[in-house]
């Protein structure tokens, strides 16, 4: 049974932030994403996709950001009748020099190269990325229920 963090039910739009500093934080990011997805009523597939994407993006921070540090912030999203999960990953790492190439590269991340960004983008409904050398990186994703 996967661990599920509890989030306060009082404010459904409250966000949970996880500082990403070490490997154990990946677990926490996944469980926070899972908890928000459950609260938002996402189905199994949508939940798995957003938790997987969150794991990938948190992992990027660990491996590519300076000092392997960053922050993941997860919250529920609402748009009309739809509910979903929104997550933002920021780091003050070196930034990505060629965003176009990064978003094209590594279709198969099996080799361990590439940032897994195009894969994460395919996984979720909404994906945006801001990055520049010297300014760090910010990736925002959103996954809706059907």
């Amino acid at each position: 049974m996967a661990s599920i963090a509890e989030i306060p039910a009082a404010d459904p739009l409250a966000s949970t932030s996880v500082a990403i500093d070490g490997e154990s934080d990946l677990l926490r990011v996944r469980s926070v994403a899972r908890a928000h997805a459950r609260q938002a009523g996402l189905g199994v597939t949508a939940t798995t996709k957003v938790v997987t994407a969150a794991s990938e993006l948190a992992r990027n921070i660990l491996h590519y950001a300076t000092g392997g540090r960053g922050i993941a912030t997860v919250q529920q999203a609402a748009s009309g009748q739809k509910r979903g999960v929104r997550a933002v990953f920021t780091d003050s790492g070196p930034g990505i020099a060629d965003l176009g190439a990064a978003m094209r590269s590594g279709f198969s991340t099996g080799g361990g190269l590439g940032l897994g960004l195009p894969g994460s983008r395919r996984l979720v409904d909404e994906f945006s990325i801001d990055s520049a050398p010297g300014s760090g990186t910010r990736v925002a994703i959103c996954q809706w229920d059907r």
Partner: protein
Amino acid sequence: MPDHSAIMHMGQDLLVILHGDLDDRTVESIEREVTSEVARTSARGALIDVSGVDVIDSFVAQVLARLVRMVRLLGAEAAIVGIRPAVAISLVELGASMPDVTTALSAEQGMARLRRMRADNSVRIDHGKHC
């Protein structure tokens, strides 16, 4: 043995059951444990059952694929079984679908596959002697 996994011996095969949310260290130590166990017991096959795992990201997929390759190098056959539908879809979207890895729906089907692969191999060896 970390509590997210269990290794069992079933005849000449190993059955490795993974469950829960696996952190990177656990996954890598499972890789080491299984490899050394296959070598130690000269197992003919290894099944990795992930039906209790609800998220497999590209890193875990990579390690699993690597484990299968290593087991093959040790002369045994390996298969990943029990990948859940949502995990299967996610791995394909991620582009981390472990193309060279044998898969099966369940441990039972996986065992049958391993037996068949061993039988195939021995038939091929016989044919090799032919002409």
